[in-house]
């Protein structure tokens, strides 16, 4: 048992921190809100200044696109925890690197037996091409069907349907809403329900359908990617609508399709904890220097206790990142539980950290010029993506209740 980072992992993290420090990501995030109309109630200046820096070349230089791809296909052959270290660094400075979409897609392709998947991997590993993961939430102990995020509201529809076309190919129709990093992606990889007349006993899908992995060229016929901006300009999202779009049928085990969802949860958790670290550091620094009634505000118990609460949630989140990072390969049966727990705690921690950051700074923390609102925006949107933190919390309960029921049966 050893939870220490290896020298390579420390290097990976420090290198990521160094590479991202060359960009003024926070300033760019604020400028982008001004430019791109990210302020639903006004407050932004029309025709503002900047664009977000393109961080993909930096990612390629550092080898991040191939983190989860094996050597034979040009990747670094590392695991979830390594990828989570990089996402944590991105989260610290709110850097929009398109890894949340790209990495789960490469994980699905890596576990596919289809030759077409192997053919896609080298260009994705080098970053010459970029993939986006079409997210679909696997069934749980209450709802036995796959679902995707809705365009509006709370009712979660079934994933798009794939119909068999020529050998090894399908046509896919339907919509994936709020897909991370979809705009500008070259390949879309994810889960669809294969339309089969009689259904399959082991597919885990609804009658008449079976979850399958598909890879679709983003520029192909019948593929529309609508760029979506919501509240946090650093987060690239897209609605992907498919209308009989031709795709490759990936021969990927259903467990791998589910694991891609859990991986995305773990990556988002890691990114969130990175953002918590910065929010806490900045809050603590301010609480040391700002004086009221003749003493630093950090000496007041009320302020001190709220900051230790952020620390408590941050450390709980960090511990679960270790669990999730280890479980993907070390205990695959626990990966769903570990990733969902990490997502649940990290999402809550980021909300607490962002709100505390604003409170500790007082009025100035709620002004446009301050960085706190950028972390607040990150917290609010992040918690609603990829099923939302509520679904992750529910999955923690579901996994444990299933384990408990099995233990009771065995006894």
């Amino acid at each position, binding site marked *: *048992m*050893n*939870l*220490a*980072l*290896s020298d390579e*992992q420390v290097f990976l993290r420090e290198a990521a921190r160094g590479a991202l420090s060359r960009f003024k990501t926070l300033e760019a995030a604020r400028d982008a809100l001004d430019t791109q109309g990210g302020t639903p109630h006004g407050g932004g200046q029309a025709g503002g200044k900047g664009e977000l820096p393109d961080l993909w070349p930096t990612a390629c230089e550092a080898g991040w696109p191939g983190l989860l791809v094996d050597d034979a296909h040009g990747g670094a052959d590392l695991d979830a*925890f390594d990828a989570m270290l990089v996402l944590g660094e991105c989260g610290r400075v709110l850097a929009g690197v398109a890894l949340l979409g790209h990495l789960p897609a490469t994980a699905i392709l890596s576990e596919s037996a289809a030759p077409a998947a192997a053919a896609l991997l080298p260009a994705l590993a080098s970053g010459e091409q970029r993939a986006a993961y079409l997210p679909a939430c696997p069934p749980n102990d*209450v709802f036995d069907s796959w679902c995707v995020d809705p365009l509006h509201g709370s009712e979660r529809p079934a994933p798009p349907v794939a119909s068999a076309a020529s050998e090894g190919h399908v046509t896919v129709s339907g919509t994936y809403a709020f897909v991370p990093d979809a705009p500008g992606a070259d390949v879309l990889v994810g889960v669809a329900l294969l339309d089969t007349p009689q259904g399959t006993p082991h597919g885990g899908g609804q009658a008449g359908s079976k979850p399958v992995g598909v890879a679709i060229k983003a520029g192909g016929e019948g593929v529309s990617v609508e760029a979506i901006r919501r509240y946090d300009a650093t987060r690239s999202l897209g609605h992907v609508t498919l209308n009989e779009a031709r795709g490759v049928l990936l021969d990927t085990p259903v467990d791998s399709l589910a694991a891609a969802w859990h991986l995305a949860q773990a990556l988002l958790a890691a990114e969130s904890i990175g953002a918590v670290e910065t929010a*806490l550091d900045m809050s*603590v620094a301010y*609480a*040391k220097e700002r004086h009221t009634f003749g*003493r*630093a505000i*950090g*000496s*007041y*118990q009320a*302020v*001190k*206790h709220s*900051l*230790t*609460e952020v*620390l*408590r949630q941050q*450390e*709980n*989140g960090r*511990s*679960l990142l*270790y*669990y999730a*990072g*280890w479980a993907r390969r*070390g*205990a695959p049966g626990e990966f769903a*539980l*570990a990733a*969902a*727990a990490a997502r*649940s*705690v990290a999402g*809550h921690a980021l909300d607490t950290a962002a709100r505390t950051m604003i409170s500790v700074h007082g009025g100035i923390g709620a002004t446009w010029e301050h960085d706190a609102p950028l972390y607040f925006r990150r917290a609010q949107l992040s918690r609603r993506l990829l099923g939302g933190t*509520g679904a*992750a*919390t*529910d*999955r*923690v*309960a*579901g996994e*444990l*209740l299933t*384990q*408990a*029921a099995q*233990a*009771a049966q065995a006894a």
Partner: protein
Amino acid sequence: MDLDDTPEQAAHRTKVRAWLEEHKSEAPVLQGPGALTDEDEIIAARRAWQGKLAEAGLAGVTWPKEYGGQGLGPIEQVICNQEIARARVPGILDAIGVGMLGPTLIAHGTEEQKGRYLGAMLHGDEVWCQLFSEPAAGSDLAAVQARARQQDDGSWRLTGQKVWTTNAQFSAYGLLLARTDIDAHKHKGLTMFLVPMDAPGVTVRGLRQISGEAEFNEVFFDDVALDADAVVGGVGNGWGTALTTLMFERVTIGLGGEGLGFNSARFAQAIAADPHASRDPEVRRQLGEIAADLLAVRFTGYRTLTELQRGQIPGPEAGLAKVTIVNGAIHAGELIADVQGPDALGEDSEWAYMISFLPGLKSAGGTEEILRNTIGERVLGLPPEPRLDKGIPFSELRAKEAAKA
């Protein structure tokens, strides 16, 4: 990063598992059919079982070999604890002595003290208790008032009261923090003593709590005579010696937090027994939040263990794990009582006992408020709360308090 055993650890685990398999029938039965009910019988059986565990090398694993330990690392101790839990047999009776007080003696005791006391402690022949807290000195431990006065012949006379003392009713010895110089500053005038619990003038009284049971004691000392060699770590060095004990307390909590039975699997079982509750979204949300936090604490424990293995000493942030565990268990008790209704509060309900036990546990090892102060200052580096007790002789401080009251 790896949670699996190294080959050496796996070999250790196999050895421990084999011993437990062979000897678990000799362990005292504390629950279920055939369980012991007589308090004295239970204590005697658990002391004997501790002796067997120590003999087999499953207790005091990190203690040096010369004092009966194995001279191994914290991981090997955790492996033993995990295997003991897996075999569903009780662990050692004197976890406080072996986990906290013994290591304090090893660090600060004289060779004579170590030779005389450690072996009997490890084997359960002599159980120990921790005599630190007082009615007016808990989180602010350096405010202790139990007074030891040195006599002309070098011996001591001790008078005062201690409280929240686990195991005092059957302990042979206690490690006691007393004030020996009332005119020195608060933290300077303290000395640590080892006290025979059968000495004339020592009175142990059970302290009943919300559950109606007495998990703790209060202990009174009325002019108790102590030999000159009862001092541990030198006269006036009591605060430093106490800090060593508190450090081992954090380690014990960090490594064994889930040993209290506050774990996600147990709470999930209680909910799973009610199929209707298992499908209720609100119940699931609460269970998910509680369980995620408690799972986090398990891995925080592994992080602490990794630090220990690398020769680092866990800091006060390990105390945050205690905050999470206690509040998570309180929340779980609430949820289970909401699901089960009044049955959860029945006389024989394990949940009624847990629900009663937790409000007091919140303050064990220091109140949550003071813990958050300490962590804010030591870990986050926030400026300290202004203090009115620094640099003042303890006698003056007491006089000021009395004048204000």
